[in-house]
């Protein structure tokens, strides 16, 4: 049954509210939880649900996404049969149409014709959750649905399951029907299909703004949510890095935090998410922050409610702060000096 499902990830979404973090990268490649990228969640869920063929439809700034996914090896998708496929959008200036653009699919219709799977799961790239899709497919078939949408607390997660032959019809008839994507169909109350909903009960967040990103990150410090996301039997895979274990030096103090590998910590860290390869200097205090890969925070700094994008350097004695509702975001690769923000 499992191998009847095809995975389709729409990675074309662009949220204005996440501008600060998506200038250099596609939304799908936004770092999360210290060592992951947003796309890791949906991609791992697909793989853990037995999906063996995954197509990614990216649009903006997908270099970082390609670099992250590579051949798909880390998700066990570097296969001779099926595996990982990339279909970048040929239409760069056309406006964005919501999840599952039929135009974008039409340009790559052969993928749908050639694959042997009978059903397709079309998903966005920015939902953080850990879900097995097998029961969704089982119910879809048993209940005779045309389209199943997955909901969380009654709200759609913008993930759709549809029979592949029906999907191909939808794509081919987009001119006559006027539907430009799956979400168009679902939101039209007069659509001709049997629509089913599947309620997902685990933790799930759609990241669409800096605020939701910040909250979703801080929620990781809540053990029940953490346990919901990181199940041993359904692991979230990501690109592996050969970082050494994290080094806690004399005089450091770390509490209520999530820390990835390769860090060297001498300062104080509280309620924060620290990514791979971060250096935190002596007498520095980091509270309620998200610190991405390879940042260096020198001695005597105070940071509260700040998001540091990758490769940021914070010089000695710098104070930076935001608020819970409006965290201060520091762009990738920049240098923050003590005098710059005073």
């Amino acid at each position, binding site marked *: 049954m499992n191998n009847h499902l095809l995975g389709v990830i729409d990675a074309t979404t662009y949220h204005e509210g996440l501008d600060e973090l998506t200038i250099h990268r596609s939304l799908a490649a936004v770092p999360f*939880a210290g060592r992951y990228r947003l796309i890791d969640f949906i991609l791992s869920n697909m793989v853990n649900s037995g999906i063996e063929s995954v197509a990614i439809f990216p649009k903006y700034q997908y270099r970082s996404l390609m670099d992250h996914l590579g051949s798909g090896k880390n998700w066990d998708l570097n296969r001779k049969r099926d595996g990982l496929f990339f279909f970048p959008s040929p239409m760069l200036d056309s406006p964005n149409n919501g999840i599952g653009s039929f135009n974008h699919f039409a340009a790559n219709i052969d993928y749908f014709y050639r694959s042997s799977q009978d059903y397709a799961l079309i998903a966005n790239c920015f939902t953080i959750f850990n879900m097995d899709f097998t029961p969704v497919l089982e119910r879809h078939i048993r209940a005779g649905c045309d389209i199943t949408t997955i909901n969380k607390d009654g709200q759609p997660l913008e993930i759709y399951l549809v029979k592949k032959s029906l999907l191909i019809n939808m794509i081919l008839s987009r001119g006559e029907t006027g539907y430009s994507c799956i979400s168009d169909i679902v939101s039209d109350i007069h659509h001709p299909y049997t629509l089913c909903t599947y309620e997902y009960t685990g933790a799930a967040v759609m990241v669409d703004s800096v605020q939701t990103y910040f909250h979703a990150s801080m929620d990781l410090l809540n053990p029940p949510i*953490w346990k919901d996301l*990181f199940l041993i039997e359904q692991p979230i895979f990501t690109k592996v890095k050969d970082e050494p274990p*994290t080094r*806690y*030096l004399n005089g450091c*103090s*770390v509490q209520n935090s999530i820390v990835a590998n390769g860090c060297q910590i001498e300062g104080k860290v509280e309620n924060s998410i620290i990514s791979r390869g971060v250096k935190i200097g002596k007498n520095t205090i980091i509270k309620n922050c998200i610190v991405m890969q390879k940042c260096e925070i020198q001695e005597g700094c105070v940071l509260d409610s700040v998001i540091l994008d990758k490769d940021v350097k914070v010089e000695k004695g710098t104070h930076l702060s935001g608020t819970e509702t409006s965290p201060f975001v520091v762009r990738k690769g920049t240098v923050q000096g003590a005098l710059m923000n005073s």
Partner: protein
Amino acid sequence: MVKKKCVAMLLAGGKGSRLNSLTKDLAKPAVPFGGKYRIIDFTLSNCTNSGIDTVGVLTQYQPLILNSYIGIGSAWDLDRRNGGVTVLPPYSESSEVKWYTGTASAIYQNINYLQQYDPEYVLILSGDHIYKMNYDLMLDHHIDKDADATISVIEVPWHEASRFGIMNTNEQLDILEFEEKPSEPKNNLASMGIYIFKWSVLNQMLERDNQNPHSDHDFGKDIIPMMLNEKMKLVAYPFSGYWKDVGTVQSLWEANMDLLEEQCELNLFDYDWRIYSVNPNHPPQYISPNAEVKQSLINEGCTIEGDVSKSVLFQGVTIGSGSFISESVVMPNAIIGRNVLIERAIVPSNTNIPDGTIIRASEGEKDVILVSQEMLQGV
């Protein structure tokens, strides 16, 4: 096969019996070290970092975990079209099974493997040591000196010299004599068990050694003395830097503790000489609101709710609340309950330590404790 300039042969069949229960089901090179590595990672990473892309790994004792760990070598970038890593277990011929009886016999029985690459030089390594070394520089030295064999040596404290194989050399570091564990050492240059040979010479030596019924077929005991007898050119290659044989429970513990020093000689954070390993996929470590972590090395997948100081924690370790772990090494996926006290101990992989357990040496006792299932049942 494409001809190779230098092929490495890594001896990984050692039993490591002084590591007690740690090597009961595991070859010594596969013993966990440094929070995420296995001992063999250092040698394999040295090969890759030195540009050596053809490595034969000779396994014999308890090879299951070691073999599956090495796999096709992709963790060390040694999954190559030409060369790469090849695991070489003992095999049977029509008449008999040929166990590796000594280091030299292990190589002798894999002459076929070497011949396919027709190398100019063969590098002999062991998978028992923790160190970072550029073998390419040693090869340059070997070629410069036009030596038949080059042996890497390290200066050891004079009072410890009698524990090692000692090279007696002249001022140009030509080797004049080799003494295995001399009671009265004349020199303090210890052999690190790393040899480079001209393949043509080694090939001959192995053939002759194999004919000798009195030989133990060992590099140190047989091959090197035979070459010295025949006045071949053997030179020492001096190495300085961190090098440790982690052959005992005590030395394994010490080497782990060395990593916690402020100025650690073995820098794991050197991105120009990375130590690669098979990366298990674990989420980041979670440090709870009541935890305290000091001067420690902690890997992904750990959940820390207690106090950890001067310790090395491998992937997937859980420390319950109210527990105190100090000067200890906790190996992968060990679960330590609540209100546990552990001092100066090694906790093996997958050990489950019940709530309230106390493990520490009695007053005046210097030895490190190796935690075992029997010990826990006795508590």
